[in-house]
């Protein structure tokens, strides 16, 4: 039997960090299930869902990876999804939920404090999950761009959501675009769009 953990590793970005991490996982007889890596400024960051033998102590996993990553100044955190679930910390929603629809929310304009906070609060009102988020501030003209990938539960009134966001941010001259995932697929993939047979009235 194997047990899954979710870990984050953050270290100074230097050649060899990924090799060291993969070696540590091999030594612990662990394997990657899902992985996402990014370099933020000078730091290498990785979020890993990994499987380990059932009897592997989580403290040993953290200790071993930490030791391997020490030359890179690595910091490791580990979470046990089963343990969190037992504490009642269940995720609200995810893209696996059948009736959730992926959307892209893009906000641009002058950088102002509190924009993300207010947007996140409005999204939370409808139980909308932020699945992915990118953002950058341009210091030369004090503007920012942020893109959020959303999982919108079925039944959410997207029209009202759009109006609310436009009203909330439009007054501050921020531009808001909310795009259905089908639109992004249609413009980025050469394959023909699936054609459903219409019900002829």
């Amino acid at each position, binding site marked *: 039997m194997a047990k899954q953990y979710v870990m984050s590793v953050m270290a100074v970005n230097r050649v060899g960090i990924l090799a060291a991490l993969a070696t540590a996982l091999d030594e612990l007889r662990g394997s990657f299930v*899902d992985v*996402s890596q990014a370099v933020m400024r000078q730091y290498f960051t990785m979020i890993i869902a990994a499987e380990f033998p059932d009897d592997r102590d989580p403290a040993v996993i953290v200790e071993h990876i930490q030791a391997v990553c020490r030359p890179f100044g690595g910091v490791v955190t580990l979470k046990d999804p089963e343990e969190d679930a037992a504490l009642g910390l269940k995720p609200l929603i*995810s*893209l*696996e939920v059948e009736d959730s629809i*992926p*959307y*892209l929310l*893009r906000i641009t304009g002058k950088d102002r404090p509190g924009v993300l906070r207010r947007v996140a609060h409005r999204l939370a009102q409808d139980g909308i999950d932020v*699945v*992915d*988020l*990118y*953002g*950058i501030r341009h210091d030369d003209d004090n503007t920012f*761009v*942020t*893109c959020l*990938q959303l*999982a919108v539960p079925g039944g959410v009134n*997207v*029209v009202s959501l*759009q109006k609310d966001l436009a009203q909330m941010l439009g007054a501050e001259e921020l531009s808001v*675009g*909310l*795009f*259905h995932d*089908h*639109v*992004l697929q*249609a*413009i*980025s993939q*050469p394959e*023909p*769009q699936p*054609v*459903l047979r*219409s*019900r*002829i*009235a």
Partner: protein
Amino acid sequence: MPRRRVSFLDPNTATLPPLEVRTVTLGINAADLADRSLNRLCEGLYQRILQRAQPFVQLCETVSAEYGVPILQRRVCVSPVDRLAEGHNTDDVLHIAKTLDGAAGHVRIDQIAGFLVRVQNGMSRGARLMIESLPSVLAHTDRVQAAVEAAGSSSGINIDAVELLGRIIQSTAQATADRDGIGAAKLSVLANLPTEGPPLSGALVGEGWGDLVVHVSMSAMGPIRHTLEQRLAQDPQASLPTLAGDIKAAAFQAARVAELIGREIAQRLGAEFGRVDVSLAPTIRPGQTIAELLHVLGVSAFGSPGTAAALAMIYSAIRSAGGFASTDSAAEANVLLPVLRDAGLVSATEAGSLSLEYLEQLSAVGGLGLDLIPVPGDTDPQTLSSLIADQLAMAVVTHRPTVVRLIPIPGKQAGDRVTFGRDLGDAIVLRVPKAASSTFLNRGGRIPGVR
């Protein structure tokens, strides 16, 4: 597992082009409503439009909001109005037109089309009656668009109809003199009307469709400009093949979005999905004009040498993009050059770089005829007919569709400014060369087609 779309999510690597749909047109079949009783016919028409168009308008709003893609214009096209009007007199035809206009206003659609007369081969008594009713129809309605197909590559040009239309256009302008002759802006003379749709201005929805069909038109001006500006910011010396590729990619995206939205509306409405019109047209958005697009490409003024070459490059790119984007793209793509709707073309006429003669030539490189051209109010009907005949002749020879919409502006001379407001905007009245002789058109009959 969550899917990652880094190319769209990463603000550093990509920005989304401005995506929107130019028009969505609902075609309604009303052939079964033919009735000798005018009241029953009009009541049936009114109810049919309300019943079909109300959910259509609602769906346009819902789908547009759900997908985050604006729809600039919603239109309805009822067919076959000419057959429904057969056997009725001119007053009855006006009543039918008012019924269409009233229904269109009730359901809040921007235009209602289908008031089409086809006379490319010959003119029946009913067709003549409909044409003769146009000045009154267009003066007493706001949303009705009318069209007369007077030529085709196989049929040739019906000169009798063209001669009549010169007088009808002048009368229509006079009938709406209090509104600068706006009635004439709603009357198109056509050649080589695509039989399967999408509808050219004021024409039919296409033949061989069922009771309900949804056609869409892409809005590519914004995405193309956005893409070109991004490319030129990175590489100011970008070559023409590179820019042509960029135009093609942007037009592909615009056509794909139009198809997606059109199919969704058709699916929810229980209608057939028709055609995606991949023609390039200006929009009401600032900077979305053909003149400004050419300026981005490096043509200093629209109408100056190099304009036709640049248009040919755009025409080639949008045609290929449309064909690849959708199996249901329309057979013909055009570059629409409506002077009244295109602020860039107005500036070019004001600066003197664009003339009527040059616009005529541009139909050879994808331009769609002489569209929404303001001409002096005292232009005689014979000259109007001659201009129409010339443009139809080009379409007959090139086997391409064409639209001629000439607007004599009462009381205005060449160089005067005219303001229509709403979606038509301002324009400068163009100089028109006077027809030297009326003998040719007066001979009447039909100029044979080109096989």
